[in-house]
């Protein structure tokens, strides 16, 4: 039996072992030397509340609505709600005097349903809903988990790195 790449599988049979290997003891000592060395290696732990994780622009944090000159870019087309595999987004549109003609009266994302797939961002024709770099989501009851427009709006300055990344990626 060979592995899929044609190499011999790594298999140890007790009859192939030398006498000392079969007594266990030298092997155990080897293992203990290894663990003793590990004790003095640098640690990987991030001391979270003090040491924060700074995501790359490619990171998909919580989805937000892009706010430009005080108004959201969203035109309430509903594509994001349509594409959302977790059915987390609810949009209700209406007409407005502004150039974009339509705007969302209600835009809600249930953060308990959201799976951070980023499909809404991909589907959006206006680049109005994008994934931010925020990953700290805290709520104490299911009602608080439904984020309305007040929590979803985020200015373009704050989202600059992500917007640049998206432009490069497209």
């Amino acid at each position, binding site marked *: 039996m060979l592995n899929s790449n044609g190499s011999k599988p790594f298999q140890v049979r007790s009859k192939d072992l030398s006498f000392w290997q079969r007594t266990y*003891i030298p092997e*155990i000592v080897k*293992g*203990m030397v290894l*663990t003793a060395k590990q004790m003095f290696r640098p*640690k990987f732990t991030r001391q979270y509340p003090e040491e924060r994780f700074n995501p790359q622009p490619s990171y998909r944090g919580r989805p937000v609505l892009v706010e430009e000159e005080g108004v959201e870019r969203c035109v309430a087309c509903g594509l994001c709600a349509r594409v959302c595999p977790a059915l987390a987004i609810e949009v209700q549109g209406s007409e407005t005097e502004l150039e974009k003609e339509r705007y969302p009266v209600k835009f809600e994302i249930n953060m308990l349903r959201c799976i951070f797939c980023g499909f809404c961002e991909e589907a959006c024709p206006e680049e109005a809903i994008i994934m931010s770099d925020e990953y700290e989501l805290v709520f104490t009851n299911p009602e608080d988990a439904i984020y309305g427009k007040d929590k979803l709006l985020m200015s373009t300055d704050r989202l600059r790195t992500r917007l640049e990344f998206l432009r490069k990626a497209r």
Partner: protein
Amino acid sequence: MEFLLISLIKIVIVLLVILTVVANLVYVERKVSAFIQNRIGPNRVGWMGLLQSPADVLKLFIKEDIVPTNANRFIHSLAPIISIVVSLVTFAVVPFGDTIHLFGYDVKLMIADVNIGVLYILALTSLGVYGVTLSGWSSNNKYSLLGGLRSAAQLISYELSMGLSVVGVIMIAGTLQLDRIVELQQGWHWNAFLTPIGFITFVVASFAETNRLPFDLPEAEPELVGGYHTEYSGMKFGTFFLAEYANMITSSALIVTLFLGGWQFPYLETFGLDPLWVSIIQVLAFVGKVAGMLFFYIWIRWTIPRFRYDQLMNLGWKVMLPLAIVNLLYVAGAVFIFGL
């Protein structure tokens, strides 16, 4: 009256020391395991996380104590008590220092000077299995029962080689009194050097007796959920936890007493120190040796994976028992030829 009072003081001191050491041992275990896995470990509660164990105990006390519906309520409550009592009581015969002269009294630094100390220890360590097996049976849970049965099988298999390796020490010392055994290991005449095979078999058997990692089949988490303490919560679970660590301390103390010279500090008499200082250094030597053994226990735990059940039985009956018998013959021959 004086005797009673001195004994009582010794009991209280030893009990307090063991319980504090247990609490800190849990902390040390978590720290060492963290370092071995390149982590930091508990560091939030108190300075360097030192208050983690008291916080955990407090949490365990506050938690709800659940007894399964069809469990045998009496035995379910009795089992953790058996475990902790056995592991603490065994310490009674362990000498942790030479006779010390304090406030006009000659105080022997062991709680009970029993002339059959070794037998007492072997008897009580075998009793420990009742706690585990009864908890497994009374929980009315298949995983608990399996854990309890495994523990019974494991302890019987390893008790034999443990007993036989102690017989070697008894033959060299010619006594069952633990303080005599320690006195005879003066200087570098430690039994570990005189009977190296017996030392190894005894250490391995103690790992099995205390259910520590290469042999922690009774509680093997991935296979048995939690083994014998699956159905325990709150401070009953905490008691099992305490018992495990108290067991570790007791068996480390036994290894040190029987094989590593107990409180003996080599060449101490050549320094010409005050007798009181000599006694203190001897107690510290004992504590240091036990601490070293405890670290060894933890180190082994985070190095070696668990044995399979058949491997455990093979090792116990086909390797450890013959080795212990070979050791016995070797010691008997040596004692016969050189005469001790």
